[in-house]
């Protein structure tokens, strides 16, 4: 090896030892920016349009997962959430977390609807804590222009989320689809923050297992290479 090549190798090795070798971006932004306000005429409920309505899609997504992909039911829950939020907007502490407040109302609206359905003997009602796999039969809306691979993958992800046991699924949805922080999730579903953390950890593990099974089945990864997240 020439002297030049030797020094080049030494410099490369030194750079690897001395400086960062990997690119580490921040994970979730500490305070994710909220969505833009919706263009609506002025309302008497002051601030509702600017603080509550921008979370329409987020609440709809949460409803969709609560109802395990039933779009009509999610629509009803979202409508009820916002109508209720608007009726009682005067009780909302302005400047506090509107999103967490809306998610709490949404969860209560969903639970009330389920109880009503159970009381009415609606056989389609899904018991609260029953494990269920329904998303394959009821896929969520997908953008028409998305390519087939991503659509298929997204459906599998949604199916995997919906197949999680209820306590884990709810925490995962609030965190990863709802972008709520741990203390906000604790408030919405009224559990200690430590429980949020442990359930979220477990939910992500379970999700990995389900997605890995799909990837192996589809031949995307071989069984030997699909190792588990330690």
């Amino acid at each position, binding site marked *: 090896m020439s002297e030049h090549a030797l020094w080049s190798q030494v410099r490369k090795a030194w750079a690897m030892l001395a400086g960062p070798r990997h690119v580490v971006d921040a994970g979730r932004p500490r305070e994710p920016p909220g969505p833009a306000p919706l263009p609506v005429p002025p309302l008497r409920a002051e601030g509702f349009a600017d603080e509550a309505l921008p979370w329409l899609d987020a609440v709809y997504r949460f409803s969709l997962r609560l109802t395990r992909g039933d779009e009509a039911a999610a629509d009803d829950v979202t409508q009820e959430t916002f109508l209720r939020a608007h*009726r009682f907007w005067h009780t909302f502490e302005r400047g506090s977390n509107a999103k967490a407040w809306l998610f709490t109302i949404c969860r209560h609206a969903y639970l009330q609807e389920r109880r009503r359905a159970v009381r009415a003997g609606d056989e389609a009602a899904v018991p609260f804590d029953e494990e269920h796999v329904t998303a394959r039969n009821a896929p969520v809306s997908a953008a028409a222009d998305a390519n087939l691979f991503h659509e298929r993958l997204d459906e599998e992800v949604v199916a995997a989320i919906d197949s999680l046991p209820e306590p884990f699924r709810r925490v995962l949805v609030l965190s990863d689809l709802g972008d709520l922080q741990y203390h906000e999730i604790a408030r919405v579903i009224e559990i200690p923050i430590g429980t949020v953390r442990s359930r979220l950890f477990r939910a992500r593990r379970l999700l990995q297992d389900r997605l890995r099974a799909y990837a192996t089945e589809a031949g995307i990864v071989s069984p030997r290479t699909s190792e588990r997240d330690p």
Partner: protein
Amino acid sequence: MMGCHDVLDRLWDFLDAEVGPAEEAAIRRHLELCSRCYPQYVFRRAQLDLMRRVRDRVTMPPASRRALLLRILEQDRAGTPKGQV
């Protein structure tokens, strides 16, 4: 410097921005150099990105959105009651 065990234990919290600035910096320093933990970071980050992509593709159907906004406007004109939600 934090060890691998501690970093892996706190990795989800790091990705969720649930750690303080000092711990965040320590984890970041570790990940920048550690060949064992960095792939775990990449893997978990990819999982979160996948979830976010799914999230961003689902929006309330326009007809439902319009219907809701009309109902809110109607309710707003009728006035709001007093009481707790």
